């Protein structure tokens, strides 16, 4: 890229920053206050933690699409992973001590379970739980206790998108009743928990997959 | 749907449907393809006959379909439309026969006949268009469906000719479209109406209307080969003979000339066009074209190119007639639309026969061809004499009415133009006649066709069409005063346009 263009980009970035800062310092008070609305409808949402209520009920549709994004990224990534080359130099970097991993992983799995359970009424939920599960897998891999993944079999594929399919199934069942993702109030908590369990497993696998399908094959 | 609605559609369908079916036919289904072609042509003729009787009795035939709000695809079979429709459908039948003989054994015939039928359909659509939108739709369709015919042979020359053809016609189409939409934005949709529709507009718009006129005439002028928009026509002569005959002597150039008639008479109206001072420039442009085309024709040795320049010149007779403000000139122009078609197609058929049988493409190679191919040469001679305006031919009738029209207006120079043109016509046709009849034949023809042995100079499929059209040339001249002659029909149209007694 030539010098003039670089200068223009830097200048433009500076200008944008100045404008943005000026704009946000001069911002008026918004007309709509969603926190009040969230609080007002929280009892009908099936959970007591507001973020979970927004994530899986009020704006659950966003979450549905977001899980699709994650699944999609994995499909796209699988299309890019070439057949494994076995003649490969040892991976660089220090492996995490296996002992640490053996201690850490059970703890991580436990905390994932806790996060999943806690999500209904306090910070936590499927995303965090799934992420922690994925982290556990990554740690295991780095400790050379878990191999990188090659082509997934049908079982793993089902696990990867199972959460999405479960979510879709619930959405479809509710839509058959007239409205997309409209939980009957008495069932809301149960359905959300069901979806979250599915998501935890799938998100864990998906997030782990993002790493493990790409990772260097390491000797165990 | 009443008969008055489906008849115009049936006229379109009678070539469109066979055309589409032919596309789907495998190359070797010759019999079926021929049957489809002839069936379509005969059916169309029948339908046109019904229409002719009906229109003469004063019936109206129209049908429309709304495409956009305030924009209709609309067809109307009025007297003027039928003049062009009957010409095209008669000549389509003859040219189909000719083409079947001409293309025997050559490749891609399904494609050829398919596009050929589409061209005829487009011509019918142009003739029966009831408004400028519809006219434009079929005008562009004609461009598109002619292109594959021009490049049919796929040689370098054919491809080049096709590109030049497209450059001119698509450019012209763009001008035409601009003019049409401009007019549309001024006055909304206007139907072709006798005596025009624009005269009630306030004088405030006069300048815009002049600009629009220029755009419209330039747009259709490309196909009508008005100088300086004529450059595509000689180059398009690389197409096979039937294409040159029907499309470049009849369909395409006539579509342009026909458009000029519609625009002057039924959009602007002659009186209104005259009041905007538009007719005189048009007459001048036509005159320049007449002279220029003839002069260029003189210089050509290639027979088809000479004929092409002759077409440039002759088609502008129609424009000239239109531009001569007054019923007499109008009749001259209208009748020439038919007469020129008959005569010029004869010449192209004959040129094709010479090339096919003897391999002669140049005037200088044609010495003595008359003795080798007397029937073809007879037809050629009649048509050439007609072009010059010799007595008893169709050409004489057109020229007489045109010069009378000019005289009625007191435009003396038009008379001189016509005279000069006739002299030039003679100058480039008579030497050919001299060569073919009176000069000795060469020992060897450039590329004699072995199949044409014995007394027959070529197959009857190639011979019959030019003989028939040559006969028609004579008939239209001799029986000009009869009830069903082109002249009578032109008078009928002029009566309806001017609403005045017509001589």
């Amino acid at each position, binding site marked *: 890229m030539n010098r003039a263009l670089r200068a223009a980009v830097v200048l433009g970035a500076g200008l944008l920053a100045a404008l943005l800062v000026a704009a946000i310092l001069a911002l008026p008070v918004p007309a709509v206050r969603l926190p009040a609305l969230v609080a007002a409808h929280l009892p009908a949402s099936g959970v007591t933690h507001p*973020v979970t209520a927004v994530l899986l009920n009020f704006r659950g549709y966003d979450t549905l699409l977001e899980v699709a994004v994650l699944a999609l990224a994995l499909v796209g990534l699988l299309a890019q992973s070439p057949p494994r080359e076995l003649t*490969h*130099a040892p*991976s*660089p*970097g220090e492996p995490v001590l296996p002992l640490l991993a053996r201690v850490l992983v059970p703890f991580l799995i436990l905390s994932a379970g806790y*996060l999943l359970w806690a999500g209904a009424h306090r*910070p*936590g*939920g499927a*995303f*965090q739980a799934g*992420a*922690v599960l*994925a*982290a556990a897998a*990554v740690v295991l891999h*780095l400790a050379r206790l878990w191999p990188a993944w090659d082509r997934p079999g049908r079982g793993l594929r089902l696990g990867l998108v199972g959460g999405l399919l479960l979510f879709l199934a619930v959405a479809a069942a509710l839509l058959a009743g007239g409205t997309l993702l409209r939980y009957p109030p008495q069932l809301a908590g149960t359905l959300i928990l069901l979806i979250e369990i599915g998501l935890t497993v799938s998100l864990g696998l998906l*997030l782990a997959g*993002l*790493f493990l399908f*790409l*990772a*260097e094959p390491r000797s165990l | 749907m009443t008969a008055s609605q489906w008849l115009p559609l049936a006229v379109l369908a009678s070539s469109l449907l066979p055309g589409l079916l032919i596309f789907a036919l495998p190359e070797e289904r010759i019999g079926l393809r021929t049957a489809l072609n002839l069936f379509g042509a005969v059916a169309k003729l029948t339908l046109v006959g019904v229409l002719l009787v009906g229109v003469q009795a004063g019936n109206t035939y129209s049908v429309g379909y709304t495409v956009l709000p305030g924009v209709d695809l609309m067809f109307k079979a009025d007297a003027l439309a039928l003049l062009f429709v009957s010409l095209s459908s008669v000549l389509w039948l003859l040219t189909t026969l000719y083409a079947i003989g001409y293309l025997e054994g050559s490749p891609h015939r399904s494609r050829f006949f398919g596009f050929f039928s589409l061209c005829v359909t487009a011509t019918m659509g142009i003739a029966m268009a009831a408004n400028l939108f519809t006219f434009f739709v079929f005008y562009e369709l004609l461009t598109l469906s002619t292109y594959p015919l021009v490049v049919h042979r796929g040689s370098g020359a054919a491809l080049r000719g096709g590109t030049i053809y497209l450059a001119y016609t698509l450019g012209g189409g763009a001008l035409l479209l601009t003019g049409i939409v401009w007019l549309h934005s001024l006055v909304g949709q206007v139907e072709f109406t006798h005596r025009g529709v624009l005269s009630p507009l306030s004088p405030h718009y006069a300048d815009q209307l002049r600009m629009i006129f220029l755009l419209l005439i330039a747009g259709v002028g490309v196909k009508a080969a008005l100088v300086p928009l004529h450059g595509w026509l000689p180059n398009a002569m690389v197409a096979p003979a039937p294409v040159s005959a029907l499309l470049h002597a009849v369909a395409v150039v006539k579509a342009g000339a026909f458009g000029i008639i519609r625009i002057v008479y039924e959009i602007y109206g002659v009186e209104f066009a005259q009041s905007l001072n538009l007719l005189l420039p048009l007459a001048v442009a036509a005159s320049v074209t007449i002279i220029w085309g003839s002069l260029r024709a003189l210089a050509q040795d290639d027979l088809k190119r000479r004929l092409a320049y002759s077409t440039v010149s002759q088609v502008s007779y129609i424009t000239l007639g239109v531009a001569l403000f007054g019923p007499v000139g109008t009749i001259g122009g209208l009748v020439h639309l038919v007469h020129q078609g008959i005569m010029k197609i004869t010449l192209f058929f004959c040129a094709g026969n010479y090339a096919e049988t003897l391999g002669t493409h140049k005037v200088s190679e044609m010495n003595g061809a008359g003795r080798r191919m007397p029937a073809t040469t007879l037809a050629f001679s009649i048509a050439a004499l007609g072009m010059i305006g010799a007595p008893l031919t169709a050409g004489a009738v057109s020229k007489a009415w045109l010069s009378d029209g000019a005289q009625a207006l007191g435009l003396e120079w038009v008379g001189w133009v016509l005279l000069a043109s006739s002299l030039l016509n003679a100058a480039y046709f008579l030497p050919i006649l001299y060569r073919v009849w009176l000069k000795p034949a060469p020992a060897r023809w450039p590329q004699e066709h072995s199949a044409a042995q014995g007394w027959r100079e070529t197959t009857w499929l190639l011979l019959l069409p030019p003989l028939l059209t040559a006969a028609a040339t004579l008939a239209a001249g001799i029986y000009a005063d009869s009830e069903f002659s082109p002249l009578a029909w032109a008078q009928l149209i002029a009566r309806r346009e001017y609403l005045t007694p017509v001589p």
Partner: protein
Amino acid sequence: MMSLTFDLLLGVALLWSAWHTLATADLIRAVVSFIVFGLLMVLAWARLDAPDIALAEAAIGAGLTGALLLDSVGHLRARRRPGDNG
């Protein structure tokens, strides 16, 4: 105003680590800077009373993304061909 001071310091630290991520010559260091940035983001989310995001940021933003990046740098390094600059 203890908290405001902390916020400002954290902001500066965020920007510094971000700048370092982009400006440092070595790719491994850049990725490490990015992981530091991610951990600082966890603090920022905590300061914004967003524990859910802080958890997710720790696990995903810093953890998983960092691991992915590190692994990729290693991969690119291992296969680097002559004349290819990081």
